[in-house]
């Protein structure tokens, strides 16, 4: 267990009906894992439980060997969370926002300032560093939030629809960054509705529906499981979720 970046065992969460139903996941360090599923499948609920925003009804979550349920603060130190709606303060500038987030994660002041400059330059926001976020477009807000997620150099990056609102060039840049980070050892788990993204980026893909993991593996393994050799992920996804959707 100590070697895994993230393990989820028998995770359950019920609202009016089961949202996550005995889910098991195990991600080794440096893996990029894509969690796919139709709307309401339980993807975001799963991620929110891992991050510590939602208490599970039962099950266990370990982040680099730390029990995230009994030692949440220790686990949170290693995690960054980027939801589809950016967690920003409209009246703060990107630089002030990054200073705030770095302070929350207790990053050293010099290191944080240097990292903030690097991130904002890379995200093409350096010129707007002292402009308030209320003046930003949806994409710029998403980029600022992404910088916030990366400022404390997390070991586990959890992203919910990270490319929503980004233009094609920036989406490409983010995809490249995610690949580079995983090569450096960061573990990434993301949800997306753009199957092409998962197909191109993910080491492994998990498909969930109604809170249950229907299939998991590399694209090739999923093709085998669905019996659609040589087909696209879209075809595999539709094939695997078809019986459940029906």
């Amino acid at each position, binding site marked *: 267990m100590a070697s895994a970046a993230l393990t989820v065992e028998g995770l359950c969460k019920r*609202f009016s009906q089961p*949202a996550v139903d005995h889910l098991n996941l195990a991600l080794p360090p440096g893996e990029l894992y894509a969690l796919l599923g139709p709307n309401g499948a339980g993807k*975001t*609920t799963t991620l*929110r439980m891992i*991050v*510590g*925003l*939602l*208490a599970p009804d039962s099950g266990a979550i370990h982040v680099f060997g730390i029990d995230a349920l009994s030692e949440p*603060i*220790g686990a*949170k*130190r290693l*995690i960054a*969370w980027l*939801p589809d709606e950016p*967690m*920003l*303060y*409209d*009246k*703060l500038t990107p*630089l*002030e926002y*990054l*200073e*705030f*987030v*770095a*302070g*929350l*994660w*207790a*990053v*050293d*002041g*010099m290191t*944080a*300032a240097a990292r*903030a*400059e690097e991130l904002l330059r890379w995200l093409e926001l350096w*010129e*707007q*560093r*002292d*402009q*308030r976020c*209320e*003046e930003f477009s949806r994409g710029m807000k998403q980029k600022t939030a992404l910088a*916030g997620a990366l400022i404390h150099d997390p070991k586990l990056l959890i992203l919910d629809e990270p490319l929503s609102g980004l233009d094609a060039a920036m989406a490409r840049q983010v995809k490249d960054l995610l690949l580079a980070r995983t090569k450096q050892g960061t573990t990434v788990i993301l949800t997306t509705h753009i199957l092409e993204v998962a197909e191109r980026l993910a080491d492994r893909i998990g498909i969930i529906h109604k809170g249950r993991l229907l299939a998991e593996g590399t694209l090739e393994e999923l093709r085998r499981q669905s019996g659609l050799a040589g087909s696209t992920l879209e075809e595999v996804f539709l094939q695997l979720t078809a019986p459940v959707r029906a």
Partner: protein
Amino acid sequence: MMRLAPGSVPWLMRHELRLVLRTSAQFSWRAVGVLGAILVGLAAFGGAPLAAAVADRHLVSTPAAALAIDMTLAVLFSLMLSQTLSMTVQAFYERGDLDLLLSSPVSARRVLFVRCVGIALGAIGLYLFIATPLLAAVVVRGRWQLLAIYPLLLSLGLAAGGVGLLLALVLFSTLGPRRTRTFGQVLAAFTGAAIVLGFQLPQLLPHGHALLGEWLSGALRRGWFTQGSPLAWPLRAGLGAPGPLLGLALLAGALFTGAVEIAGTRFTALASAAAGTHARRVRNRRARPFRTGLHSVLIRKELRLIVRDPLLLSRLLLPVLYLIPAVLVSFSRGPFAGVAASIGAALLTLIAGQIAGNLAWITISAEDAPDLLRCAPMTPALARRAKLLAAVIPLLPLAIPIAVLAWVHPWAAVAATVGVIASAFANAYIQLWYEKPMPRRAFRRRPPGAVLPSLGGLLVALGWAVVVAIASRGTRIALAIAIGVALLPALLQLLLWLGRNREQRPAYRRQLIDPPPTPP
């Protein structure tokens, strides 16, 4: 349903009315019951005695009554103007359906006219609500001519709407669209307070009351308010005299249509200028090391957000403005200096409680990124402590009046210091117990807040003010009262606990430890 010509004024008015009805509070029998009870209460305890008082009297305009009515209408006008100015400025910035309407072939002037009529009507709504049960009781006793108060109020609303629009135009022309947004709202808030503060001016001036009395009696002697004078028109119009009523209505109508006419030519340009007002002049700073420390970053963030929302700040601090002249009076020396100092110390305590309560309500409940704080590696208790401190830190300038008080009356200053700290922290803690997280922008238009914490906070602040007033006179009974007041917040928490049903109580206990999760 009557078919109205699309794009006509009545058609646009129906559209506005529909939007207002659908965005206002949802219908509930409870609300209807409360409103009905208020109306009946006003009719029984206000309308009936009023009707009895005027039943057998011959209502004529006297100079003293004309002066009193003029002053009352001046207060009403300033309050209405405050509302119309605020709503007019808001109408330019809050896009809503403005882009749709202005991109349609309907004339911009017509759109503005309808919007301004809505604003004027909105400004008199509360006064119509209060006046109706009072007038109903009077009319039942045969004084139907007092129904003229309705068109008089409408005229006042139209005049306030016109002046509000003209003021907004002046602000746009002089300050530009970006500054108008903030300054207009702040000006609107202070317009409402200006006349109340004006009435307190005689207290601050040496021999102020005597001077005012002299001036007023001189004005009455010189016949400024006699029946033929235009200054007596408001009273005569309210009593149903057709000439003055028509005169005032025409004046208000001309002011309103004139303002719409002037603004109409520039409305599209102003509205589109207002649409791009987010762009601020930015001076990029040089890179510097980030400040660290959890408490410090949390407090700095809260203070930054408070300072950068002047509209919210002005609304929250406005009630405090009304108390400042009274505090200034308390620094006076003389035979009653001791009493004045006690009152001053008590008022400072009251002010501290109100400011801390209002700010804590914002820092604790208005959180744009609650998930960011919850997924950060820190305990929720730490975040709350920082938010409480952020609400109390802006009270530090109160040290200045306390220092002045110490010079005049040291014991009152000591009592004020203790009272200010106790009142501020008690109020901040009450807001913490009644925490209702929601985005900051939700606090801007109609501040949502439970009645119990507001009233409870006021009660606690008043309690500490009384303790301080008594203590600064050196009376020992203050200690006993202080113990009672210190227990008040605990009583409020008990009420909160009992107000929740049995199923909610364990969840509430958990909420005290960890905030409730947002549903996905």
